[in-house]
Structures are given as structure tokens and as C-alpha cells.
């Protein structure tokens, strides 16, 4: 396996047992369905899809917060199980959506940012203060806030504290789960600028999860589109945004509202609603909403087809199936 891969998922499936009421027993929900994905060193992989498609479950698996039901996760070539949580935490750190709930309101900024150092027994109290001061500079927070509590700060400042906490262990990979969704437009751009700068400065690798496609288009170098627990298309950002192949990816991108008053509201070519994930449709799970669905789509589950430099999970783009049909 090549050296430039930071994280690798192979055939990862995560099944939750969902209670069906007091006497209904449980039903399996496939939050992740045989996902194979690589995160290469130094890239920004954007992960997009509607709510309930499994984006956040994927983030949890990568952080080691959830164990996959089947399949393997490798971190820098090493399987997850061979190391403890702390080994993973030194390499992979999260930034969450809501800086109002992801920071302990009873702790000061100093305590929040030093906690990872304490947990990992790195240095002592004198070096911690120096480290924290350095981190505050790095994320653009004034030193006077070091003893402030999160409740005294604005949303943008809190998110900077969350970023400082994530980076203090000098991780190589940062999982950003909707890092700017809770922020105002003018603050969102500052946090995005900071993430872009930090990546250049520290050589970070990001998995960037967001439902804001314009933001993903801006920051991502490669994009994976998820639908109902599967990655249905994956390609470099420029390729996928300019010419999406999967019908769902193109519907999703059609619904981006760019700030252009000359254009009206787009007519998104997408039928019906998001299916119940406990009872997914047969074959290709997207077929009930797909404008190009054929009889085959409800019968046969599509597998990822290599379309260098990426892949598409759709019968329409499977040359062998298309050959059979014609």
C-alpha cells in the first residue's frame, strides 16, 4: 500500500439496530454500506450528501468513536484495532459543528486547550502555557482571552478555540464536521480562511463534511458524494462540480443557489423524498427518485465503476452493463 494515504476505509459497513416500538423488535439500519474510501495526505476531501446519508457516522468511525460492524479502517497503513484511542487521537482530531455545545462552558480557554496535553501527558504545566499561547496566535485569538470562558466569546471565537484544541496535539488529519454551519456569513469566511491557512502552514489533511456545497466547492480538492450509506461518486473537485456523472450528484449540484439574481430557483430534477433508511429501496437505492432509472436499476445493485480519476456507482456509467443493454 502506498505511503501517501492517511486514512483508508475498505468495505466498511456500520449497522445500527433500530427499535421498532415495544413489541416490534429491532430492524437493521445500514448507516454505512460497504464504503471504500481513501484520504490522501495533504488533500481536502469534501463529503457531501443530504441529512441521514451517513456523513456523520463516517466521521465517527474515522475518529474511532464508533466501531464498524464489518470492514477495516487503516490509519497510516496500520489497522485501527492495533492501537488504543490515544494513538488515534494523536493523529486524527475533530472540529464539530456547534461551538456552543462542543466546548465545556465551565472551563476556561486555557483549560480547554491544554486538556489534550494533559490526557496525553505531554510536557508539564510550564510548557503547557507556552503551547497554549502559541496556539492562540496560530488561530488568531488575542492572548487576553486565555482565561475567558466560552460564554464570553462570539461564535467565531469559540470555533477558533475548538480549532486550537484540535491542533494542539499536532494531528495530521482533521475531521471537520460542518465546521462553519452554525456561523454567520462574515464569520464563516474567517474560519474558512483560517482552515485554508492552517492547512498550508501545518500540512494538514482535512475530511471536510458539509451540506453547504458552495463552501465544499471552494475548499475541497476531492469530493465524495454519499447517498443512503454509500459513496455514489467520487472525483477531484473540479471534475465533479463541472461535470457530475451520477444523476444524484448532478441533482445535488443543480440545487446550489449561487448569488445571481438573473437566475431563478432551479427546477431540481429529483422525485419524491429521501427514503426511509430502515427500509431502503431495492437495487440502486436511488432509483425511485432517479430521472434516468431503468428496470435494471430496481433489480440490480450497482457497484463502484472506476472512472479515472474517481469512481461512479451507477449502472448508466458501467460500460459492461451498457454493452449488455444495447
Amino acid at each position, binding site marked *: 500500500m502506498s505511503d501517501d494515504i492517511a486514512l483508508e476505509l475498505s468495505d466498511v459497513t456500520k449497522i445500527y439496530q433500530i427499535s421498532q416500538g415495544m413489541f416490534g423488535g429491532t430492524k437493521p439500519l445500514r448507516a454505512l454500506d460497504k464504503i471504500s474510501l481513501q484520504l490522501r495526505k495533504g488533500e481536502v476531501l469534501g463529503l457531501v450528501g443530504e441529512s441521514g446519508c451517513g456523513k456523520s457516522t463516517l466521521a465517527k468511525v474515522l475518529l474511532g468513536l464508533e466501531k464498524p460492524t464489518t470492514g477495516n479502517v487503516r490509519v497510516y497503513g496500520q489497522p485501527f484495532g492495533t492501537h488504543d484511542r490515544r494513538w488515534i487521537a494523536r493523529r486524527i482530531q475533530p472540529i464539530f459543528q456547534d461551538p456552543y455545545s462542543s466546548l465545556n462552558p465551565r472551563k476556561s480557554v486555557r483549560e480547554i486547550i491544554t486538556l489534550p496535553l494533559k490526557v496525553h501527558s505531554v510536557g508539564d504545566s510550564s510548557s503547557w502555557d507556552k503551547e497554549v499561547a502559541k496556539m492562540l496566535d496560530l488561530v488568531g485569538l488575542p492572548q487576553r482571552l486565555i482565561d475567558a470562558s466560552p460564554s464570553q466569546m462570539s461564535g467565531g471565537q469559540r470555533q477558533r478555540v475548538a480549532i486550537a484544541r484540535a491542533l494542539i496535539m499536532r494531528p495530521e488529519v482533521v475531521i471537520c464536521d460542518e465546521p462553519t454551519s452554525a456561523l454567520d456569513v462574515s464569520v464563516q469566511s474567517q474560519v474558512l480562511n483560517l482552515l485554508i491557512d492552517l492547512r498550508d502552514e501545518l500540512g494538514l489533511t482535512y475530511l471536510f463534511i458539509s451540506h453547504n456545497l458552495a463552501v465544499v466547492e*471552494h475548499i475541497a480538492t476531492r469530493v465524495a458524494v454519499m447517498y443512503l450509506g454509500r459513496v455514489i461518486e467520487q472525483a477531484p473537485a473540479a471534475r465533479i462540480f463541472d461535470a457530475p456523472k451520477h444523476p444524484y450528484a448532478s441533482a445535488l449540484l443543480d440545487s446550489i443557489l449561487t448569488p445571481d439574481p438573473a437566475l431563478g430557483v432551479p427546477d431540481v430534477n429529483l422525485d419524491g423524498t429521501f427514503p426511509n433508511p430502515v427500509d431502503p429501496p431495492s437495487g440502486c437505492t436511488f432509483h425511485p427518485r432517479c430521472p434516468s432509472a431503468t428496470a435494471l436499476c430496481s433489480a440490480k445493485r450497482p457497484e463502484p465503476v472506476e472512472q479515472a480519476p474517481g469512481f461512479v456507482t451507477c449502472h448508466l456509467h458501467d460500460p459492461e452493463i451498457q454493452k449488455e443493454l444495447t
Partner: protein
Amino acid sequence: MEPLLSVKNLRVEIPVGTGMLKPVRGISFDLQKGETLCIVGESGCGKSLTSLALMGLLPKVARRSGDHLRFAGQDLLGLKERQMAKLRGQDMSMIFQEPMTSLNPAYTIGDQLTEGMIRHQRVSRAEARDRAAFLLEKVGITAAASRLTQYPHQLSGGLRQRVMIAMSLMCGPDLIIADEPTTALDVTIQAKILRMMKNLQAEFGMAMIFITHDLGVVARIADKIAVMYAGAFVETGTAQQIFDAPTHPYTKGLLSCIPVPGKTERGARLGAVPGVVPSLINGVEGCGFASRCPMRQAACGSEPDLTDRGAEHSCRCVHDTDTLRNMEWEAA
């Protein structure tokens, strides 16, 4: 033509521990029948309280005042709550952001849809249910009749928001105020719902006031735009004017903050508006934006008026139009 809604110098004041909070500081606008006004601004700028003030739904401690708030020939400022209640739901209705919290979990969709119509128009339950089923179909809900017996928790977020929209249409209002109606929804659903609202507007001819922070949404649906900052409109104009020739430094700053696919270079630094919104307790000294503005000068110490910058275009700034148009935000 007499506008459907004419607001002059609307103010909201709320007494708080340390003085008087002034979240809406004298806003004025006219809205014609069938028109869409978007009020855009960041959190805390007073846009939601503006909508509640228009609907007469402010919390009890809040005080509403102004020169006039004329809706269909009637000044709402002088109305008693009982008279206001007659208008609400009947002639003007509201769509809230969170369909999760604005629907009552203990009643069926049908009960909640029909309640207002039965009360306002004294129609029979059956008639109201027919209208409810008709509107549910209009907003794109399949098997509408059977949905009436369902409870909110049985519907997805997108469906609930559609129910809210159908509910706002039940009595055929002239004005709908929508406060961030699609913010909590997925992008594909957002596009569908916005499109549907525009179609319904074309069909039924109601005016809309649309409150949002999403500039993409604003650009696509607005006829007129008001950019709100620190409780006041800082720039108003047509959608074209605001996006093609923004004038106020705040509007320009906001527009530089969002990546525009195809225009902004991928991975490049975005613009930023540094600083924070001023406290609105006891009002604002001078121009509310001065503390964040790269063009501030001594004259900004007193609040400038909203002045004309072309037909239908106005801006609240001491600088002249050419200086403002040529101003560029430096990338932060």
C-alpha cells in the same frame, strides 16, 4: 398604487436589566401586492424581531412604535389584540423557521391546518379539510387526504415545512411573512420548496416578506432586498442593484465573504468583515457599522440617513456613491 403594506419608522424596544434594548431602530419600506421583499442580515441584526413586530407577535415586555404600519388601508399600530387576531392567519400569515417546534406534536396535521380557517371563516370542518387536502397537494405532498390524520412526528422535516406553508395559505392571505423557512432543510428540498413558494405566489398573488441570512436564496427569489445591520436597513434596492452594484460597505463585505462557484478562485482566501456587531442596548451611537468599517471617518460619529443612490436604491452611509462603488474590501 396604494401599497399593500407600508411601514414607516418601525421601532421595537425591550427593557433589559442594563437599560433599553433597541433591536429595531426605525425601519421603513413599502410592499406592493404580489411582491417579494427579502430582509437579509446576520444573527442579532433584528430581522426576526422585525417580522414579529409586523405580525404583532412580540413578547409582552417589548414595545412597538412607529409613524405608521399600514396594511391594506388599516394602521396596525392602533389595533387591539382582538382585532389583530382577526387579521392573523386570515389576511397575513407567517411561516417559521423550525417546523419541528412550530407544529403542535399533540394534534394531527388536519386539526392544525383547519383550526384557523374554521375560526376565521366559519366554514364547516369538512369544507376546511377539503381545502387542507387541496393545499397539501399544491405543496407537493402525495396522498394528501390520508396525511390529515397523521401527527407531526410521522413526517420528515421537509414535509413538515410543506405543511407549515400549506397552513399559511389556508385562508388565502394577502401577505406571507417567512422567517428562514428553508434554513433547516437539505439543499435539494430547499430548492424544491422555494420553487414551489414562487409558483404559489404567482398563482395566488400574495406578497411575501422573506427573512434569511442566505445570500444565495435572496438572489434567486427577491424582487426587493433590504440589508439589515444593527437594527436598521443599511441598503435597500432591487435584487439586481444589491448584487450587481452593492453600495454600502457592509453589503459589499457580506458579498465578498461567500464563495461564488465559477467566480471565486478555488481555495483562495475569502473576504471577511472583521469585528463584531455593536451592542444594541440603549441604541447605537453614530453609524452602527463604523467600528467594522474600513472607510470610517469623523463624520461617522453621527448616524447617516438612508439616502437615494439611484431609482429605488438607497444606502445609509456618509460617503458619496462613487467612492462607495469603488471601495474594495481587502482580503483579511
